[in-house]
């Protein structure tokens, strides 16, 4: 029988069918951070339960940490309390923590792949919706809430309902200046922000096959923005090459054995999909969001939809202070943010740096580059990207979530407009209740930072 990767992984990890009809699914890798875990550990303690497989859980800190002054205790006592709680819990339950002094610290969805923890055929859970990111390596990765974090700690398993699989095939070739971010914004725009509810998205086609792992991570990262809890790409040579030599990847002959197993977990040719969507990559333009959810985007050469259109357009335009029918190009920005688990990897920084090199950030723009991990930061510095950014007037920061959700000192003020390489343009997402976010690729963010307004990156390549 031909099966999808999702079905194979699901079957392999099924513990049993629960009396409720849900499946008890074994979780192979559990990643934790400071925000969604303190209460989960409290619940374990109050119930007198331990952590079942502490060696299958790994912790980092990312959401609340300052990206400028990381001296302890933090200036913000609440942030300090959260990191202290994580430290205490990891110590008590024997969970490794990559803290601020570690070369391995970074955004949880950046370090998992980078360290080779994330591997094909795995089930992964993390108390963060963008856990879908890890699917780029052929894992089935679920974002969960705090009570489910407790469940995984206690039992290394989750009670889950089955998922359908939608195959999204992006074929043809992307034009210059069009990136993985644009591909996924296009997908979410076409299928809608709730189009993926109940589904895993399997991404394929020549465009996805040709992508690097960094690019696949960007696409899978935003699956959740399309309503799909899980997104994945079938493992292939690109995946295996990426994993070879990473700290947690198998070594030597074990690596070869792993590769043959990983290969066997990919969807079979002729597998049955619940749904298939085809997209022509050549039609995709650099995209920019104009609204308050990630589905509300247009190509950079297009106009913002008219206020009378369906689907909450009027509410979004009012919040954004934009006029329906206006071109998106030329929209003034105040802040530019290159970072987040969507676009803070070395290749993202390279693309942004390529645009910024030898140029100057517009005088009225505050521009930030925040690497996704300590390792990304070091690699970028080794090739002089920090210099390029600094000389162009960007701030070069420490690794963390930063202005993606502003649970740290990096945030918008008042009605500021931010060109952002992150994943959410929700009202208030970047820390100011009235702040406004325009999502785009890192190269587009860099171009907007220089021009002080939304610009077509294809004109400055």
């Amino acid at each position, binding site marked *: 029988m031909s099966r999808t990767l999702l079905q194979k992984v699901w079957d392999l990890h099924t513990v049993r069918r629960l009396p409720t009809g849900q499946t008890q699914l074994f979780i192979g890798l559990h990643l934790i951070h400071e925000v969604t875990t303190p209460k989960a550990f409290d619940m374990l303690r109050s119930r007198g339960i331990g952590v079942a497989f502490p060696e299958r859980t790994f912790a980092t800190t990312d959401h609340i940490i300052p990206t400028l002054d990381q001296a302890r205790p933090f200036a913000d006592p609440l942030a300090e309390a959260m990191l202290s709680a994580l430290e205490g819990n990891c110590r008590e339950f024997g969970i490794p923590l990559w803290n601020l002094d570690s070369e391995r610290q970074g955004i949880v969805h950046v370090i998992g792949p980078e360290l080779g923890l994330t591997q094909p*055929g795995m089930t992964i859970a993390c108390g963060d919706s963008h856990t879908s990111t890890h699917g780029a390596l052929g894992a089935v990765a679920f974002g969960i809430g705090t009570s489910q974090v407790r469940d995984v700690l206690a039992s290394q398993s989750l009670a889950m309902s089955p998922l359908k699989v939608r195959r999204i095939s992006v074929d043809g070739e992307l034009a210059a200046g069009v990136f993985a971010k644009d591909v996924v914004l296009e997908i979410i725009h076409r299928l809608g922000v709730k189009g993926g509810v109940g589904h895993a998205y399997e991404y394929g086609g020549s465009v996805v096959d040709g992508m690097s792992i960094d690019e696949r991570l960007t696409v899978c990262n935003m699956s959740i923005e399309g*309503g799909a809890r899980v997104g994945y790409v079938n493992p292939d040579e690109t995946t295996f090459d990426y994993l070879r030599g990473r700290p947690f990847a198998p070594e030597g002959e074990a690596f070869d054995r792993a590769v043959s197993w990983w290969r066997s977990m990919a969807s079979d040719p002729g597998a049955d999909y619940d749904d298939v969507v085809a997209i022509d990559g050549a039609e995709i333009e650099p995209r920019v969001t104009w609204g308050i959810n990630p589905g509300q985007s247009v190509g950079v050469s297009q106009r913002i939809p008219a206020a009378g259109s369906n689907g909450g357009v009027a509410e979004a335009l009012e919040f954004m202070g934009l006029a329906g029918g206006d071109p998106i190009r030329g929209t003034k920005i105040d802040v530019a943010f290159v970072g987040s688990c969507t676009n803070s990897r070395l290749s993202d920084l390279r693309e942004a740096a390529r645009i910024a090199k030898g140029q100057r950030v517009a005088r009225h723009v505050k521009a930030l580059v925040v690497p996704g991990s300590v390792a990304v930061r070091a690699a970028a510095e080794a090739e002089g990207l920090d210099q390029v950014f600094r000389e162009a007037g960007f701030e070069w920061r420490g690794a963390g979530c930063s202005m993606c959700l502003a649970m740290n000192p990096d945030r918008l003020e008042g009605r500021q407009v931010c060109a952002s390489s992150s994943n959410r343009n929700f*009202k208030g997402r970047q820390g100011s209740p009235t702040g406004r976010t325009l999502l785009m690729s890192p190269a587009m963010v860099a171009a907007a930072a220089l021009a002080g307004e939304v610009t077509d990156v294809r004109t400055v390549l």
Partner: protein
Amino acid sequence: MSTREIDRIEGTGIPVRGDNIDTDRIIPARFLKAITFDGLGDHVFEDDRAAMPGHPFSNPAYAGARILLVNENFGSGSSREHAPQALKRWGIDACVGESFAEIFRGNSLAIGLACVTAPRDVVGGLMTRVETAPATSLTLSVSDRVLDAAGERVAVTVEDQVRDALLAGTWDATGLLLDDFDVVRGVASRVPYVRGF
């Protein structure tokens, strides 16, 4: 690990209109900066309420409501359990909506907050009714899959798995997942990457 069975939820309703209301709006990220869920109920929809003086959660007519009425894709975005926790701590015990985002629904179930669905016109009708007469008594029966609005009964959809978990009191899954731990160990030992390649 005793949880409790949940079937009938009775009380007044509170309507929050709009599609795709995300969890950042239900509880802004700055309120996640705490190591407990205590006090979240005071901050539910805080920024929306500030921006919109007539917000239902600021309207005394809806004080004490137990059943939240919402439109499409409610609870999208972040996986923060703080969103259903904030609603629950405010006093909400059930959500009736056109549809819910998946993680939100799972998080809600995990804390015994029932999310059930109904078609757009049914939800719209209920919202109008509650807006016109906020004191209207609503009763949700999970077992019968019916919402009774002062004598007017409408069918709601509750997934079998959700219904069973609520009725059996196993919505807090930890106990269930630990029931047969040897089987978990068995699976661990057959998964190649756990066993070692």
